[in-house]
Structures are given as structure tokens and as C-alpha cells.
């Protein structure tokens, strides 16, 4: 399968990466090069093979339901959360106005 400019534009929009015409033109052959190469995977007979879900045999560990047991995973640290925000106001993150 190969991608055309319109497809790349659609992917870029899905990925929220703004790309002008030139950038799209340049990207088309690059992506096709890579996609053409990864498509050799189609040669592999994977009948009956389950897709890998865990690299190392291991199952999901659950944690206890405790609030703020560790500051690294708990809340109550608004200043830290907002410390790097490009636009923090009144304890909120500010973003351009959204119309729903």
C-alpha cells in the first residue's frame, strides 16, 4: 500500500501536525519508502500466532485504593502541576476558547 498526498494530509491532521504543501510533498516519498519496506512483514506466515502482549511473562499488578500515599503519584500539588504551564490562570490551564 502506498500513500498519496491527501492521505498524508489526513494522517498529519489526525496526528495534529500542521504541514504545508511543500512539507506534504516531501513526506509522501519518505513515508512510502518506509511503508514499502515494512510491508515485507506480509511475507511472514502468522497463522495461529497471537500478537505479543507482554514482552516478559508478567501480569498486571494492582495498587491499593489509597489517596496521596506517595507525592509522586498523588494529588494535592497544584503549583507543581501548573509550574510549567504556558498559560495558567486562577489555578486553571488556559487554552484558546473552545466552542462545543
Amino acid at each position: 500500500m502506498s500513500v498519496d498526498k491527501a492521505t498524508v494530509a489526513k494522517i498529519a491532521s489526525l496526528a495534529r501536525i500542521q504541514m504545508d504543501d511543500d512539507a506534504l510533498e516531501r513526506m509522501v516519498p519518505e513515508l512510502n519508502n518506509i511503508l514499502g519496506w515494512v510491508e515485507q512483514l506480509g511475507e511472514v506466515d502468522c497463522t495461529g500466532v497471537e500478537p505479543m502482549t507482554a514482552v516478559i511473562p508478567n501480569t498486571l499488578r494492582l495498587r491499593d485504593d489509597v489517596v496521596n500515599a506517595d507525592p509522586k503519584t498523588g494529588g494535592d500539588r497544584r503549583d507543581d502541576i501548573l509550574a510549567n504551564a504556558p498559560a495558567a490562570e486562577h489555578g486553571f490551564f488556559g487554552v484558546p476558547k473552545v466552542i462545543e
Partner: protein
Amino acid sequence: MSNYRIHGATGEWEVVIGLEVHAQVTSKSKLFSGADTTFGAEPNTQVSLIDAAMPGMLPVPNAECIRQAVRTGMAIEAQINKYSRFDRKNYFYADLPQGYQISQLYHPIVGEGQLLIEKDEKAGIPEDKIIGIERIHVEQDAGKLMHDQHPTMSYVDLNRCGVALMEIVSKPDMTSPAEAGAYVRKLRSILRYVGSCDGNMEQGSMRADVNVSVRKVGDTELGTRTETKNVNSVRFVMAVIESEVRRQVDLIEDGGEVVQETRLYDPDKNETRSMRSKEDAHDYRYFPDPDLLPLNLEDDFLEECRASLPELPDAKRLRYINELGLSEYNAHVLTAEVETFARFETLLAITAEHLGKPESDTATTVANWSMSTAPGVVKSLGDEANLEYATAEAQAAILKMQDTGKISGGQAKEIYEIVLKTGRSPDEIADTEGLKQVSDTGAIEEAIDAIIAANGDKVEQYKGGKDKLFGFFVGQTMKAMQGKANPAVVNQLLKDKLG
């Protein structure tokens, strides 16, 4: 089959409804972080580095959320999947810091189940109906955007971000607004019985996405559906269906086509509108979250979940009918809400104990008291009632006096009024306020004798076969006793004396 029909210009239409209910899981901390879930905190105070999606942050699931989802699944008799996975649903929005929601698409924790909605002829549900449930999966809630605080900016509060939700997806089995309303109420009731969700719709603990399509009666193909998001009351769910059905029928009959889209409900205008911000067709690029391993539920864990389930609404209702001898109606009302049955069962237990009788002997009395007498008194008092005084002990004491004939039904009400106003003990009120029946046969006999003596003609007529006059004698006796005579005693004595 419901008989809900829409009369269009071109004929009769029916509606097909499916609901996706998002229910907030009752847990102290979030699904993947240790931040607090308490409602109503200052903005961004209940946000961990994980919830804010700081670089390098990782999710670790909360055991309690998994447990509650499993218990909920068991409560709807669903298949519990011992193997499940978390997937990422990718999209960009300001209330979604990670740029993806951790959810479950391919392997949800709970598979197919079902829920019973009870017949309610008045509402147009002619008989009990089973509504299929497709699945329950666990996922993260999003944050909140405020649009009215600043002229050019929206403000983002991430407090809710990462709170655990169960998404409970019904099959498209409902065919009227009433059925949908009954489904949401029943689901809410089950969740609250189980304790897996507080069911508080005003605080957003339960929201429904309402999927609606219409088709001509007799058609078997489903029409194109719309999904109205985040509807937060039973009333609104029903209103959304009604307005959406009307809109779709009108649209089709005018030669238009229903577009599969996401809509938003405006309660002020009572109409739905297309949700512009989510208009572009989403491609969520679901894939298994590589930060999380597969979830394998152990048998011990499942055992514990099952053992911890309470008696559920349907079982309780049937027990009330079959073992306590309550009417279907009483059983239905008393089992609908957790608070209602809890109050009833406490009062019943104490009353039965005080009377030394089995619960079944006094259940109907207690049910009538709980459902009608006691609420009536509370209502009539309005602000004067102090509900702290409405203890089970006090009510049981009143019911006992009534059962033993110490007081009449009317006196029970009067005593309860005083209890609610003052907190005084019912027995003491009965004694000091003279709110007691006279069961003393001497006093009653005296009164009866006087009445018989004064009404010789009526005695004759009664004896001659005019049975209806018995009521007259009862009335006269009660009047003479100023309403304080025990009616049972009065009846007995009158029968004896009149022959």
C-alpha cells in the same frame, strides 16, 4: 413489545434505543493515580503528575476499581472475563492531557449480561422485560473545560481527569422512552445496591449516551442512529429520545436522511443539536496500552467479589412478596432505593423483635407505615418536623403500641407528630397526653349500656335484621369514649350485648 408509536405523515414509526451509561466507580483514589476523587474540590488540586500527563508518567491500576467493576458485572449476571486488557483511545482535546483515554475496547473486563425492567402499565410497559447488556468496561474520565470565565480562553480543570468510570453498554433493546427511563433507574438502583457507584446524577456520577434510531413499524433493518452525549438525568434521557424521535421522523418524512453523528442535549430548549467540536469523523487508533500488562483475575479474587455482593433488587423484591407477604406494589416501591429498603428492614426487624412475632406477621403493617403513614406525617409537618427524631426505635415503639391496641391508628399519627417535633418518647407521650385507647371493658360497657338504653328503637331494628345499624352503635360508643376506645374491644362488646 412496547406499544410506543410515532404517528408520522407517512405512517407509524417505532424507535430503537441503546444506552451507554458512564458510571463513576466508587473509589477513594483515581483509576491510575493516587489523587483524590472527592467531588467539588478547588480546580486542579486533585491532580497527580500522572493525571496531568507529565513526561515519563505511568499508570498503575487501582484494585478497588477493578473489584467494583467485577462486582457490578456479577450483579447483572454478566460474564466476567478473567483476561482483559486496557487499550488506548487516541484523540486530542484539552480535557484529555495524555492525548489518549485509557479504556477497554478489544478485551473488556465484563461481557454480556442483562437487566430486568418491571412492568409498569401506567408508563406503557405492559410486562416485565429483559434488557441485554453488551459489556462493561473500565476507563478514565476526562477533565473539565469552562468556557465562560474569560473572553478569549477556556479554562481547564483536571480534577476529574483519570477518575474511574464503568461504561455500561446496553443492547439496542429498548423501544420507548419509558423503557429507557426504567432501564436507567434500575441500573442506578443496582449500582447503588452493589455500592460500585453512588448514582448521583447531578454531580455527574452517572451520565448516559443515548443512541436513537427510528424505523417504520414492521421494518427489521435498523435505521441510522444518532448518539446524544452526557445526558445526566432520567427525565432528560426520556426527553432526548422524544425529541430525537420527532426530529428523525420529520427529517425522513421530509425526504432527508439521518446522519450518524454525535449530538448534544439542550435542556432549556428541550432539543438536541449536532456537536460541532466532535464533528470530524474520529479515527481513535485503539491499541493495547503498552504501559499496562494484561489483567488476569484470580479465582480467589472472583470468589471474594461474589461473596461480597448484597441481596440485589430483584431477589429482594421477590422475597418481600413471597416471604413477607407484601403486595407487588409495596415490594416494588420499597426495594427501588437503597435508603428505602434499608429504613424498612431496620424498622421491620426492631418492630418484629419488640412484638416477639415473625417479620412476616408485621411486614405489611410496617410497610404501610413506612410508605404512607410516616411520610404523610412528615409531609404535613413540613419544616416543623425534625427528622433526627425519626428513629427506628421511636417508630417501632409506636407500631408496637398500635399492634397491642394501646393506641389507635389516629393516635399513632398524633404521637408521631409530637415525636417529630420534640423528640419525646412515644410511650411517655401516650401516657401523658392521654393518647391511649381505653381497652378497659368496664368503662366501655358502661358507655354501651347507656347507648342501648337511649336507643331502644334502633336496637329493635338491628335485632330485626338491619345489620347496617352496627356501625351506628360503634360510632356512638366511640363518640362517648371521645375516640379513645379500642375499636376491637368495642366491636366485641357490642356484638355480645346486641346478641
